[in-house]
């Protein structure tokens, strides 16, 4: 504790760059930020969100934000390294789990000579809401399976573009994640982040995504962690 107090005092004096190195600032509820070098920070948190689909890690350089997402991480990952940072800068971190079920998977093989269908719908890549009158709805918080998207469909629009559509059943989602798993990849990872109520989007595919499986997840955020803080030191060299 004395070590933390010394570090904080030096932060106030504006000279934390030298002496705060290697000090860890624990935050309540388990999130810690450790200065591994003057410009490298590693976060640690407990694996304490059963049922979470993953966690989102965010950072800011002012206590009130704006916070920027560093990544959507697998559910049981409990650390994150943030390297080669802006020197002599305050860094604030928080993590939060996210929850929600996925649609069924669709497998897509995009032929290299796929015809260009964009003329029929020039705005096809734009995320947009799609009305499905009479569709059953449920809250992700109460009934995740019933609130998961359904009817995911993929249409090859160009030799490197796919349009996805789905039916939204959730009433309380914070957004959707389009997740992809290229052939041979071990697991799905997010490839697009979409606002709530969206039911259609386009994806510009990478070569390795020409043959891939996709699914869409309606998600809601869990509780934010408290904020962990570190201040970087002078850049080496």
């Amino acid at each position, binding site marked *: *504790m*004395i070590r*933390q*107090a*010394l*570090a*904080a*005092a030096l*932060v*106030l004096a504006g000279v934390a760059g030298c002496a705060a190195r290697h000090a860890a*600032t*624990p*935050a309540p509820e388990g999130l810690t930020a450790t200065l591994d070098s003057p*410009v490298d920070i590693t976060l640690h948190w407990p694996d304490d969100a059963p049922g979470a689909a993953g966690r989102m890690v965010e*950072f800011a350089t*002012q*206590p*009130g934000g*704006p916070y*920027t*997402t*560093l*990544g959507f991480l697998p559910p049981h990952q409990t650390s994150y390294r*943030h*390297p*080669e*940072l*802006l*020197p*002599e*800068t*305050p*860094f604030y971190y928080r993590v939060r789990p996210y929850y929600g079920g996925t649609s069924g998977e669709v497998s897509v093989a995009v032929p290299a000579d796929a015809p260009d269908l*964009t003329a029929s719908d*020039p705005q*096809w*890549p*734009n*995320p947009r809401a799609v009305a499905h009158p009479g569709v059953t709805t449920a809250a992700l918080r109460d009934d995740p399976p019933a609130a998961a998207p359904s009817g995911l469909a993929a249409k090859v629009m*160009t030799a*490197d*573009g796919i349009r996805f559509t789905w039916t939204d059943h959730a009433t309380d989602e914070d957004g959707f994640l389009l997740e992809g798993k290229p052939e041979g990849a071990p697991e799905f990872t997010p*490839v*697009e*982040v*979409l*606002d709530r109520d969206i039911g259609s*989007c*386009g*994806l*510009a*595919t*990478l070569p390795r*995504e020409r043959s891939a499986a996709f699914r869409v997840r309606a998600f809601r955020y869990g509780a934010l962690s*408290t*904020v*962990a*803080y570190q201040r970087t030191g*002078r*850049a080496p060299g």
Partner: protein
Amino acid sequence: MMSNRAGILAAVLAAAGLLATAPAALAQVGSGNWTPDSPSFKVQEKGCGKVSDLTFTLSCSSGSGEQRAERRYETYAGGTHQFEGYFKITSQSGSRISLKQTFHGDQGPFFLLAVEKGGRMYSVEGGQTIGGGATVGTTVRVNTINQVGGTHKTYVNGSLKHTTSSPGGDFYDKLGAYRTASGAGPITVTWSKIRFWHQ
């Protein structure tokens, strides 16, 4: 020297993000004392490029001709200049679009941060990968620090991703959407919280 009790309190406040500090100090990132700038800018629309405040759209898939929707900020010379901004691609089926440029006066683009399919960010000069994660819907933070006559550094989401020598002379910043020689739209990108400093 601060007492142990006061230091402990400061640590708690710092951890909670409640440290009372002057706004100017809070805004500072990077070494040194920065002075905020408010450079003027001109909007540039060419080809299928359209600008609406801080939303920049290339609506066509043309792989030729000049397609740009950008802000061109005023020229600076000498000193060290920092740019900070956040971009979010809201729609993309095109690729290899420059989103942020540091121009070397009349000598042309000096550093171009571009994005291609899959969210890969790269430097157009040399093709070096700068980072991933600029996927549709994801906000990315960019800081560039140009020490004129020294180095030009690019930080993405707080991390140093690109360093190159900076020659002397005049420079200016551009942001928006610009079709590179090998690129094509469509793309829509929104920038936010644009700030400038110098020292």
